[in-house]
């Protein structure tokens, strides 16, 4: 597979390490009253769609950036690649 890195251009997926669903960005609030349930869902439950999947890849043999890649799990077609840092900020994460 080839991932079109937003800064570096097309790179072979074997330069990357896969983590999983990009929902892992949405780490729950540890002080929420239902933190235990929320962390359980965060850590263990997955949509696991057959189709478009936003997922995290790490460019370990490259610039060390984490990327959010939108990839179809049936065709493997990649439709979008973002820097995870930007995606995280867009999801409201900061300090």
């Amino acid at each position, binding site marked *: 597979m080839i991932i079109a890195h937003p800064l570096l251009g097309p790179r072979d997926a074997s330069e990357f390490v896969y983590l999983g669903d990009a929902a892992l960005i949405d780490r729950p609030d540890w002080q929420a009253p239902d933190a235990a*349930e929320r962390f359980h869902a965060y*850590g263990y439950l997955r949509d696991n769609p057959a189709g478009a999947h936003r997922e995290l890849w790490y460019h370990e043999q490259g610039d060390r950036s984490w990327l959010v890649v939108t990839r179809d799990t049936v*065709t493997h077609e990649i439709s979008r690649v973002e820097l995870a840092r930007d995606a995280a900020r867009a999801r409201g994460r900061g300090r």
Partner: protein
Amino acid sequence: MRYSALKILREGLTGNKGWKPVWREPEPKSEYDIVIIGAGGHGLATAYYLAREFGMRNIAVLEKGWLGSGNIGRNTTIIRSNYMLPGNEPFYEMSLKLWEGLEQDFNYNAMVSQRSILNLFHSDGQRDAFVRRANAMKLAGADAELADADQLRAELPFLDFDNARFPIKGGLYQRRGGTVRHDAVAWGYARGADARGVDIIQNCEVTGFDISDGRCHGVETTRGPIRAAKVAVCVAGSSSRVMEKAGLRLPIESHVLQAFVTEGLKPVIPGVITFGAGHFYVSQSDKGGLVFGGDIDGYNSYAQRGNLPVVEDVAEGGMAIMPMIGRARLLRSWGGIMDMSMDGSPFIDRTPVDGLYFNGGWCYGGFKATPASGFCYAHLIARDEPHPVATQMRLDRFARGNLIDEKGMGNQPNLH
């Protein structure tokens, strides 16, 4: 029709005209006591044991494609019970015992061949972990045997002892481990279930569940609605897709695992051999092909195909431990979709919906589990309580913190 050498002789002399279909092709009825979704190995085994052990007869097994088209027909055919944790080992040992009597039980030669499985170790730490595991196996009534490097050198001279990057320090044998002709397992169970009245309905895809008041009353299918008192999902590889129709999210990701076979060769490899410092395991089929595999591709996928890096990684592992296979040619590759669970262990459980049962999360280890999975699932469905060897295979174990993590990799499915 009972199979035997005599029957073959009689048929051979009369032009093989008398063979009957191995299973019927029934039309679906509008209602069953139990509907099993998925005519793979586990689903067919479940139907077989429900009929044979629990006296249930009014059962349908619904299959989207042809029976046995899932992972029962795309695996590396290995059976073993060399697990470590109490949540797993008694279950897999039960499975191995069922394999040992299976062919006589269902009168079909699935070529259960206990030629042994060997897991090599390459460091003291690995050895310690294998000793712990071997002892857990023995405590569970399984067989286990440690071999040192000298013994392996004598038994398997083709392994790379002298020039290896990671020296072979020994191995853990399970002599009762081995291989089975995978398709024949599906066929044998199908034949046995069919003979006991189970309707196996191929080309019948489940499109939805009939759920009201927290209870499942049946399924919608491409061949019409079917009512059932109990609906048992058994579709590893597609678990998330099917359970989503019942409104449930699972602790599962779907990943592709590739496997490979070489051209036929005269016998060179006696049993199953597993590399401990790279991703490679191999056995030789009765037809002579080296059947081998390695790691999953590592990304979520529902495509039954993988990519080159893993093919190369597996071949590298093979050449690293047995450089004699360099001139054996890879003939076919295939990919199966694995239900990779969050701790690497499976589920046989009720769901929050009454009357709806779930069996899945087998990772890449479902084949060896087929008989026990069918038996324990049948037990759960028939009696509404888990079989004693499957009490920990629960969907809520993550919420409780009772992990069955053989590899110690945590909640990242692609590392199991």
